[in-house]
């Protein structure tokens, strides 16, 4: 009888551990099981990506529709190349959509905002977004502002 109680509580303990791990995975890290299967990949080139980092959000009108996969350099054009995974369900982006790098709040993290275009053809896996707008770099803004002040 005593061993039965012990066995049951050990079983419950192990289950609690597994449950905790699952909760950590799903609720805390937001791991989704069908992660990359239902997504397509597009790239975009930027003059300057500012503080954009892998796994940053990709949004449409502020709603997340994907995330940044990797960031690299296009050695020919000397520009930053950003690869992003867009959710498969977001299949309504026209091929002339543009991408811009935005900042959440004044000092918050940076993310990509997509502005849809008007073309009939839709973006698909492997496409590139041609129209981009780089990150606003605070230092550049400040120095531009000061420079203008001085020349006035």
């Amino acid at each position: 009888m005593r061993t039965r109680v012990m066995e049951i509580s050990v079983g419950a303990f192990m289950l609690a551990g597994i449950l905790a791990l699952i909760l950590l995975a799903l609720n805390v890290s937001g791991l989704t099981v069908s992660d990359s299967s239902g997504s397509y990949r597009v790239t975009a080139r930027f003059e300057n990506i500012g503080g954009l980092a892998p796994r940053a959000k990709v949004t449409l009108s502020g709603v997340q529709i994907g995330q940044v996969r990797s960031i690299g350099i296009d050695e020919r054009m000397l520009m930053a190349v950003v690869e992003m995974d867009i959710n498969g369900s977001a299949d309504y982006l026209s091929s002339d959509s543009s991408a811009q790098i935005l900042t959440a709040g004044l000092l918050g993290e940076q993310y990509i905002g997509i502005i849809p275009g008007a073309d009939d053809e839709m973006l698909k896996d492997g496409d590139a977004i041609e129209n981009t707008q780089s990150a606003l770099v605070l230092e550049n803004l400040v120095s531009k502002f000061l420079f203008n002040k001085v020349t006035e």
Partner: protein
Amino acid sequence: MLDQIQALGRYGLTRLGAVGRSGMLLAHVLVARPQPLKMFPLLLKQIYFVGVLSLVIILVSGMFIGMVLGLQGYTILVDYGSEQAVGQMVALSLVRELAPVVAALLFAGRAGSALTAEIGLMKATEQLSSLEMIGVDPYRQIIAPRFWAGFICMPILSAIFAIVGVWGGALVSVDWLGIYEGSFWANMQHSVDFYEDILNGLIKAVAFGFVVTWIAVFQGYDCVPTSEGISQATTRTVVYASLWVLGLDFILTALMFGDL
């Protein structure tokens, strides 16, 4: 002068001897051919003593630490208008650092000291000797199940600590301080990565469980079989295990997250 040098030398030699013996013990535990059928009931019992009985202190501490993190995070972040980020702060600090480290420290105090005292007392009352004379290897019967139980329980306790802590943080910042629930969880999920943060945290917990039970079991097995001997060994378990956990945490953090 020469006496002091001699004392230093003797101290060094005894220390070195202890390191060697602890290595031997580990080798015996790892090499011992596992006999799953015989080991299983013993292991079960030890998981009960080492894990299940540590659960209460882990739950309570995890909860309070999460709540404090929520409160502190809120008061700091609200000055920058980014109190939404409190979820990510709570979750990251718990998952990466506090859950494995604090759970391991509590584990050393709660389970490690008990292991040392129990094994030490078995030695003092000749139970280990009488096992040997019955023809049963104490490494197999006594040491190995306790060692593996600690190894198994630590990651479980750490995961439970983390999830309870996150819940405590949510309780304070969402329910009491009124942060918007959606952004609390969304920010958290966005910045916590399963492989990078959660799995690395679990790896830490496994490493800590290994070190803490190794120290606890060795100190018990190697103690001077008297009352003072056992009490000193128990103290040593808590002190050494805590120091090792903290030092190892720095090394693991540097390897996993840092660019050192």
